[in-house]
């Protein structure tokens, strides 16, 4: 067979393949497609039957979900949250299996049924609400400022056009601060670690991003502190597969109970170092 013929054959076959793919069906955006899954309590029943909660958490985020290579344990606010929910739903806080998720993999893993829920510093947004269901807010993050202890900057009101602010590239936090303080000088870095190093080197007066991340930096170096009230809203929610309202209710009940008996405040204090601010 000549090369040309072969190439055109290849093209024809590829086009046929595309058409077959086009005709195939996906179950995506149709999570309630299966007969068993149309039951809004199906996942909750499955969890109870299994006797174990499978939770997706991050393994690389300080304070929320960080794997300690020494002990092999994953520790953080999100992880403790998973244990608390296991206690509330299954009556035993040890009945948790953790799976690692990243920002990229958490929604596919949820939709594919690899995890029952995702507790992974996930901000509730309208776009995400179309894909997954969220619990009530379990952590109220917001953009805030990190400064050296004793700095004259004690909140967004102290930031002026003469202040140099450090931030990470591509983050919405840059737009937010420029909107709040027109004309402010912003130095952008590739990642938070670099921005933090620049703050230590005195290249700017304050670093801005989600306070949850800033608390992690403050924990790394006690000479720095998070100041002022958050000036944007980044409400973190626990995500479950769309349509599983039974599970969402169970999670929300767990959250309400935790807030009522003070264990939520304890958890917050354990990781963030202070009581949650009531808004």
């Amino acid at each position, binding site marked *: 067979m000549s*090369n040309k013929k072969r190439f055109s054959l290849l093209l024809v076959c590829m086009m046929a393949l595309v058409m077959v*793919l086009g005709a195939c069906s*996906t179950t995506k955006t149709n999570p309630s497609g299966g007969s068993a899954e149309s039951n809004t309590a199906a996942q909750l029943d499955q969890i109870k039957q299994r006797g174990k909660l499978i939770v997706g958490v991050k393994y690389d985020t300080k304070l929320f979900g960080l794997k300690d290579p020494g002990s092999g344990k994953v520790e953080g606010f999100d992880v403790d949250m998973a244990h608390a929910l296991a206690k509330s739903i299954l009556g035993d806080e040890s009945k948790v299996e953790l799976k690692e998720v990243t*920002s*990229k993999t958490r929604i596919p893993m949820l939709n594919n049924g690899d995890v029952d829920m995702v507790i992974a510093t996930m901000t509730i947004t309208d776009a995400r609400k179309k894909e997954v269901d969220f619990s009530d807010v379990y952590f109220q993050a917001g953009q805030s400022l990190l400064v050296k202890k004793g700095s004259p900057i004690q909140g967004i009101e102290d930031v002026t056009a003469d202040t140099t602010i450090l931030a990470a590239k591509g983050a919405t936090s840059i737009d937010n601060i420029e909107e709040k303080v027109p004309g402010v000088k912003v130095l952008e870095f*590739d990642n938070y670690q*670099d921005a933090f190093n620049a703050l230590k080197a005195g290249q700017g007066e304050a670093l801005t991003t989600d306070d949850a991340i800033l608390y992690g930096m403050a924990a790394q170096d006690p000479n720095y502190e998070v100041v002022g009230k958050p000036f944007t809203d980044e409400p973190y929610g626990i995500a479950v597969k769309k349509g599983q309202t039974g599970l969402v209710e169970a999670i929300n009940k767990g959250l309400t109970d935790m807030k009522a008996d003070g264990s939520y405040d304890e958890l917050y204090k354990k990781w963030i170092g202070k009581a949650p601010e009531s808004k």
Partner: protein
Amino acid sequence: MLDFSILIEYFPDYMEGFLNTIQASLIALVGSFILGTIIAVFRITGIKPLQWLGTAYVEFIRNIPILIVVLFFYLGLPSLGARLDGFQAGTLGLTVYTSAFIAEAIRAGILSVPKGQMEAARSSGMSYIQSMLHVILPQAIKLVIPPLSNQFINLIKNSSVLTIVAGLDLMYFADSINGDSYATVSTYIFTGMFYLILTLPMSYGSHVLERRLAKSS
């Protein structure tokens, strides 16, 4: 299952990633060719230290994952005082990684040019570098074109590691499109097609070239 509205709605994103992938591949292509040629010449000069350096470079790079090379430029360099963004670090890593394979291909090509030619060129008064540039390399190039074209296809495919350092390539935009649309199947099938637009013609071209070269020799 193939949702064409994804392609239409996110076309600008696909294009930006596509063009960045082409740009990274072209830069790395030229860079790795130059670097690879230098390393290949190092290995055959007969000057021992250069030879060792060249061999160590090729053997080391060829036996480690490209991701390590890219992460070295992205995460490692800042602690040595230089800072590169994801695209720069990724393209540089791609260049260094590919150059080791190209050096091997070129070395094999040069070695297959009969020794007598070098001697003849030298005895006719050319310097080593002159005989290399004017006599040996032009002949070697012909022999190394097929393996080189394979390396360049690999280079395009490997450019997808830029996504791991946020290098704004096609795969990076695919992830962001998927993060926005959640239409995983369609998003990545279209992404695959964009890659095939680049790699299939090259693969076809290299088949043809190989045949033609086989016939002419």
